[in-house]
């Protein structure tokens, strides 16, 4: 990941900051220039709780450049409790089998290998199973 993109995406990646539409109140992540529900344009920042459930998932054995050292790893569609679905890796799975509907919560983790460019280590959101007893 190049330096400009790294800084540009920092807020979304670290804190799951999306948007709320002032016209129809829908919550949006990732950010968009036009609200997909009402077509309105102006939006306000909104911090998601980071709680959600697994909507679908896959464990990958072939990785693209930058992720080769991590295989196999599990990627999921996570439905946030506020509505939007996000794409993210699952982490801290231990022995637990993943299932659709499993509750998960966001954590910040190292996302990918150092790239050719600049020695940047990319951190961002992943999701881990919600521990029994923590809720």
């Amino acid at each position: 990941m190049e330096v400009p993109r790294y800084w540009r995406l920092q807020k979304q990646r670290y804190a799951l900051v999306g948007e709320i539409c002032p016209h129809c109140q829908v919550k949006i992540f990732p950010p968009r220039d036009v609200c997909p529900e009402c077509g309105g344009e102006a939006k306000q920042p909104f911090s998601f709780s980071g709680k959600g459930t697994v909507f679908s998932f896959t464990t990958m054995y072939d990785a693209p450049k930058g992720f080769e050292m991590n295989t196999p790893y599990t990627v999921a569609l996570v439905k946030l409790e506020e509505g939007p679905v996000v794409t993210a890796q699952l982490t801290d799975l231990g022995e637990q089998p993943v299932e659709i509907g499993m509750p998960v919560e966001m954590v910040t983790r190292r996302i990918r290998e150092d790239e050719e460019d600049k020695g940047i280590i990319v951190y961002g959101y992943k999701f881990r199973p919600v521990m029994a007893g923590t809720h």
Partner: protein
Amino acid sequence: MCDVVIAGIGQVPVGEHWGVPLRTLAARAMLAAQRDAGGLKPQALYVGNLLSPVVSHQSNLGTLLADNAGMSGIEAFTVEAAEASGAGALRAGYLAVLSGYVDVAMVVGVEKFTDAVGPVIEGAMSETMDYDFEATNGLTPTAAAAMVMRLYMQTYDLPSDGLAGFPVLAHENALNNPNAYFRRALTREGYARAAMLSTPLNLYDKAPYADGAAAVILTRPDRLKKALEHPLVQVRGSGAAIDTLALHDRHDPLAFHAAVVAIQNACRHAGILPADVQVFELSDNFSVYAALCLEAGGFAQRGAGWKLANGDELSLKGRLPVCTMGGMKARGNPAGASGVYQVVEACLQLRGEAGANQVRDARRALTLCLGGPASTAVCHVLQTWQ
């Protein structure tokens, strides 16, 4: 509107052409199409390509390919629409001839994977998704298809080999296609034993990326100075549509909405219903996408597309033959060229030149090419011209 016909077709065998540069791969298909069209000279070249800027470090393919093939002075540009680039280029060519501005247009789809290897390829293919919010989290097109497949299998309660019928059929049909990458049979047992690429998607659920080039020449019938030795195929309808780029933004990831709209638009333009075709070249780049293409076309109810592949309905002698020359799965998937291969293969059927794989009385065909999980869809209706 005038009639637009395909006067010539050309293709190279899909495979690993390590020693052949992209320009030469394309030239072979282009020159074959030109010969097939009786030497007709194009005024325009529309190139369908996805990977060249990243994998071959080469952009401006329009100029490179026209120049290299001796077509200097004509108009040329590249169309990119992810894996539907070739079909998008065909649509651009079709509209150009339809506009009356261009009399003879060549469309070439070309993809060269073997200028790079392994993770670079998966990375380059991942650029077709939302790079900032899908690819940077490690998602690839294969993983996206796997998540669609898991949802499909769980929602509709499929057995673990529920989608096996698609690759088995594709491999069967490729046996007689000299341009196919894989000319060997696949059994359900072979499918069941295959290694996982991205759970629950296995090696045979994914069409293999490979090098390839295919070309067609479009014109108006009155532009043909002499009769050709083969029948003409008319482009009767064309439709294209997009959905959300990211899978996570879909309200219903199992509804291939863009495919529905593209098929409807192409069929409405042609004045037909999807059921009025004898051949359906669909996107089987992932086996679950083949099922969803069938559902998008209304050939099966939602959740029932997979069942069609478990009978004879989709085979060459069935009610709706699909992937008649092996589809992307067994002919091979040269990404941005696949949409043009589909059209070339449909032409072979409509011209009665499909050899052992000839579908009887094939007069009309539907081609449907997807980019991503139907993030983009391009559909064409082709029929024998008279």
